[in-house]
């Protein structure tokens, strides 16, 4: 009798495990991309996945100024959010990739990040029975450069958010979705703060690069866009960062030098006070904005209202 119970338990356990494996099986490109995004199989020592730096709880950004790659190597730039990328036309702080597909493989090969040549990554995926089967089922092909990028990009394209208090106010026309401080902050954003000059559109970011004054060729010596464009005029220019979910993606800027939104607003209010001797700072920031404490607080409230409900800490 005891043997019988043991056999039944073993069978149940096996069936349960099988069900777990079946449930894990991706049904389409997006789901396969998600599996890969969270799997350290794509890093040289199998310790780092895309999600190690693009953390879901921080809107797929990182909470460190710069992230650490395999072997604890310190990266040189802040990890941008991987969300709300559908309408973006440039990727990375210097805009070196013009499509998500072009972007998707770069961190895998980057020695500061996952440090795995793509050919080796593909070999691993082919040798892995499950992945090989998933790629064959979804793409009718073994893993290759093309379908690996397609899968990762498809997952990233699914990370759109449009359920923030701001969206409820403006899209769903609910005037009670945001506080009066947020409404005042929106006016500061559009007028006195001049934020709208660069942060416009559905993700609050123009497709372009600006030098906001974080380059002085001394302790701040990342020349940004100029490395890609080879144009000295682009020294110190970086991609205009989208602002959706900015309330959960601290620290800020290409080097993560500002820990809070307050610090960011303080900087924009009078850049020369924070960074001395900056080179070629944008003319939009030539003069201090002269924001009052109330306006700064309102602006911060507005920025916080761009946080999607999926990151609402009070709900958890």
């Amino acid at each position, binding site marked *: 009798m005891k043997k019988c119970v043991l056999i039944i338990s073993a069978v149940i356990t096996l069936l349960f495990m099988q069900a777990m494996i079946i449930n894990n099986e991706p049904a389409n490109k997006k789901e396969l991309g998600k599996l890969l995004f969270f799997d350290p199989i794509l890093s040289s020592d199998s310790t780092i996945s895309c999600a190690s730096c693009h953390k879901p709880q921080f809107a797929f950004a990182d909470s460190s100024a710069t992230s650490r790659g395999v072997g604890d190597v310190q990266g040189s730039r802040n990890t941008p959010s991987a969300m709300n990328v*559908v309408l973006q036309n440039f990727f990375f702080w210097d805009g070196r990739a013009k499509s998500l597909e072009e972007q998707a493989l770069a961190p895998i090969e980057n020695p500061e990040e996952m440090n795995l040549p793509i050919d080796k990554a593909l070999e691993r995926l082919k040798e892995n029975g499950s992945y090989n089967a998933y790629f064959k089922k979804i793409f009718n092909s073994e893993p290759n450069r093309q379908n690996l990028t397609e899968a990762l990009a498809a997952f990233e394209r699914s990370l759109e958010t449009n359920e923030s208090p701001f969206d409820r106010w*403006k*899209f769903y026309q609910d005037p009670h979705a945001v506080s009066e401080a947020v409404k005042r902050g929106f006016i500061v954003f559009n007028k006195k703060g001049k934020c709208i000059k660069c942060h*416009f559109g559905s993700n609050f970011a123009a497709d372009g690069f600006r030098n906001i004054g974080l380059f002085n060729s001394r302790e701040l010596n990342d020349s940004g866009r100029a490395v890609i464009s080879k144009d000295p005029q682009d020294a110190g220019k970086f991609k205009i960062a989208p602002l959706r979910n900015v309330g959960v993606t601290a620290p800020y800027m290409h080097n993560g030098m500002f820990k809070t939104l307050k610090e960011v607003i303080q900087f924009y209010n009078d850049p020369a006070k924070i960074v001395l001797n900056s080179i070629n700072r944008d003319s939009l920031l030539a003069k201090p904005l002269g924001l009052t404490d109330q306006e700064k607080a309102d602006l911060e409230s507005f920025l916080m209202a761009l946080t999607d409900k999926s990151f609402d800490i009070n709900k958890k």
Partner: protein
Amino acid sequence: MKRIFVTVGIVITLLAFAPKNKLVGRWETKPSPKGNITGVVFNKDYTYEGYVNKKPFVSGTYSLGRNTITIEETGCNGTKAIYKLIFFNHSDSLRFEAINDSCSERKEGMQRTILGRVK
């Protein structure tokens, strides 16, 4: 009492003959090849909100002429623009023809946009 009835009567008559703002409500494009849907909500108070994929991207105010709309918004440095309104399909579809708009990006977007009334 009679005066009240007369006044109420005049108000009702005026309201009945007041030009109806056909724009009020939600309008959207069909999905683009990439699946993006652009839309706009025209409010009774002559404000509007534009959006892409349910993400607001522009707020503004508008006024109406005979067959024209004048807009002023948060984008395009707050410059005003005038467009001819072309309603078709029993006034359930709408497109715009530029009369005066110095903002080339907006002009390009507006002229290729065809909106359908969301019911």
